[in-house]
């Protein structure tokens, strides 16, 4: 990426104004899901004992729009301000989620007074795509002269197929959803930096290619740390400045390893939802931000870091000032 400094560059603020989540009430032990999707007892033991997984929030009868709609229902900050929403971005891990040409995103918006918004899906960063969507929202809003202009980032997906149910030897997916209002003129939760590291050489069938899986697992912590350090450096922050790290919920083991490697206290990595919610694709970061704010883990002026990785492979980190 080119230098951020320079004459004629549009200054921008990307602020996360409000976050809402929807966690389906149906909590299922990983063994029940594992049996349904064909995981072996050995694999399930690995997920529970080594990776620290326990329950998954799923909505067996709900559709994709049901998930996103429920997240929007929990976002009172949107009500009465729909006309200010310029963009709606679905941050989606799976590039294809419904049969063509169905478009539940647009159907949903029509029923929520948001049909005027420019709505699209951003994808190919797998479970790291939520951070990209926030960054895109800020860039789009930077060109809007209206300080009240908003962008709405939605995240949440169905576990409809094998690739959307399990990451081999790494994690099992859940169906939490989130909605985030982004604006270009907010004081709270301002994004300070966003770093992305991509490794397309890891695109492939991890389930069938043991060598690829081994190389991916070996490189994973290195590249994740590289993205984290880049985000911190860009923001002029040190790890000791961070009140919390909000990870994606793929598992506990990888974050334990990363926290140890960078020397960051594990108790400040928000891992609670790995156990109780599961890995909800790109919604994890926002679900964990909601957890951190509602539990009082973040105070005004605190710095925190959101980090996520997605198969394919993308590693992203974003530093934010509360």
């Amino acid at each position, binding site marked *: 990426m080119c230098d951020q400094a320079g004459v004629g560059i549009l200054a*921008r603020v990307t602020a996360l104004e409000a976050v809402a989540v929807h966690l389906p009430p149906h909590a299922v032990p990983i063994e029940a899901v594992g049996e349904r999707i064909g995981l072996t007892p050995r694999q399930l033991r690995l997920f529970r004992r080594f990776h620290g997984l326990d329950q998954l929030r799923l909505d067996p009868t709900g559709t994709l729009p049901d998930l996103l709609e429920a997240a929007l229902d929990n976002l009172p900050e949107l009500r009465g301000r729909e006309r200010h929403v310029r963009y709606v971005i679905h941050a989606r891990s799976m*590039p294809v989620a419904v049969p063509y040409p169905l*478009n539940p995103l647009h159907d949903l918006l029509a029923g929520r007074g948001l049909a005027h918004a*420019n709505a699209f899906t951003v994808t190919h960063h797998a479970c790291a795509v939520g951070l990209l969507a926030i960054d895109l929202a800020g*860039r789009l809003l930077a060109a809007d002269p209206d300080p009240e202009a908003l962008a709405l980032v939605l995240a949440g997906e169905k576990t409809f197929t094998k690739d959307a149910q399990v990451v081999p030897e790494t994690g099992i997916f859940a169906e939490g959803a989130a909605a985030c209002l982004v604006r270009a003129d907010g004081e709270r939760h301002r994004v300070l930096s966003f770093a992305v590291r991509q490794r397309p050489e890891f695109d492939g069938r991890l389930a069938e290619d043991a060598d690829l899986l081994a190389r991916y697992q070996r490189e994973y912590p290195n590249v994740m740390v590289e993205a984290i350090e880049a985000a911190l450096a860009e923001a002029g922050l040190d790890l000791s400045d961070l009140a919390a790290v909000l990870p994606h919920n793929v598992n506990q083991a990888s974050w334990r390893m990363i926290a140890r490697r960078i020397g960051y206290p594990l108790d400040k990595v928000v891992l609670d939802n790995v156990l109780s919610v599961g890995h909800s694709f790109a919604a994890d970061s926002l679900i964990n931000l909601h957890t951190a704010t509602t539990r009082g883990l973040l105070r005004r002026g605190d710095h925190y870091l959101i980090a996520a990785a997605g198969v394919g492979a993308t590693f992203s980190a974003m530093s934010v000032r509360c």
Partner: protein
Amino acid sequence: MADHGLRITRAIARCFDGRSEASLDPDLRVFVSDLVRPYGLPLREDLLREGVGHSYEELAEGLVREALVDGESVDLLILAFDTPDVRPGAPSSLALSRSCPGTPLAFAVCDQGSAAAFTALRLAADYHRTGACRRAVVVLAEQTALHYEPAGQVALPERHGVVVLVCEEAPGPTMAVHQIPGSEPPDVVLRMQAEQLGPDAALVLGPGLGGAEGPAAQPFTGVWAELAERLPAWQAQGRPVLVAGLDRRLGVLSMLTLA
């Protein structure tokens, strides 16, 4: 740099026949079976057996290399598509980034019908405006095969098609994108936009605009292929350009001006 915007400096378009080996990958059957099951849509067993359809990575990689033959570094690669890839779960944009000099940030936009192509260009311009991109590659792709019966009428392309647009910071006409969801009537909006560009404006209009009716042979890439063919002459003549597309299904009017 202060006065230089992002402009389209190179545009290459190509149509392809043939198929990808991925069209016979058993994973494709698993994916589309799971995809359509909740909707009760029948699979196209004939296409799955025969092996029909192409992957955006395979279709575009040669064209991306051709467009970037000068070897200059790329900051951003955005893939836009409407119809699904024959590798529906694959991050093709990341794979395509390997065909670019440099290490561009790569991602894809979709679920916006023909408007997704305009959104990709808009995002490229926004990356430039916010200091994160001096050279972007926008890849537009469509392929012919849908491996199930769609829930509604769809206009699939007659051939696989790819357009590669290289956008660079440079003096000269810069690009601006306007998108109007629910635009009625689109022709009035379009006429006003064209009038602003003046009498010399060159127009490239998608299906359903300016009297053009009937399904296009290449619904997603067609207007961009026409732009690719004619842009060098228009740029040499110094003419402003307006590219417009109307996605009737979603009701989105999109306009790109190069002026």
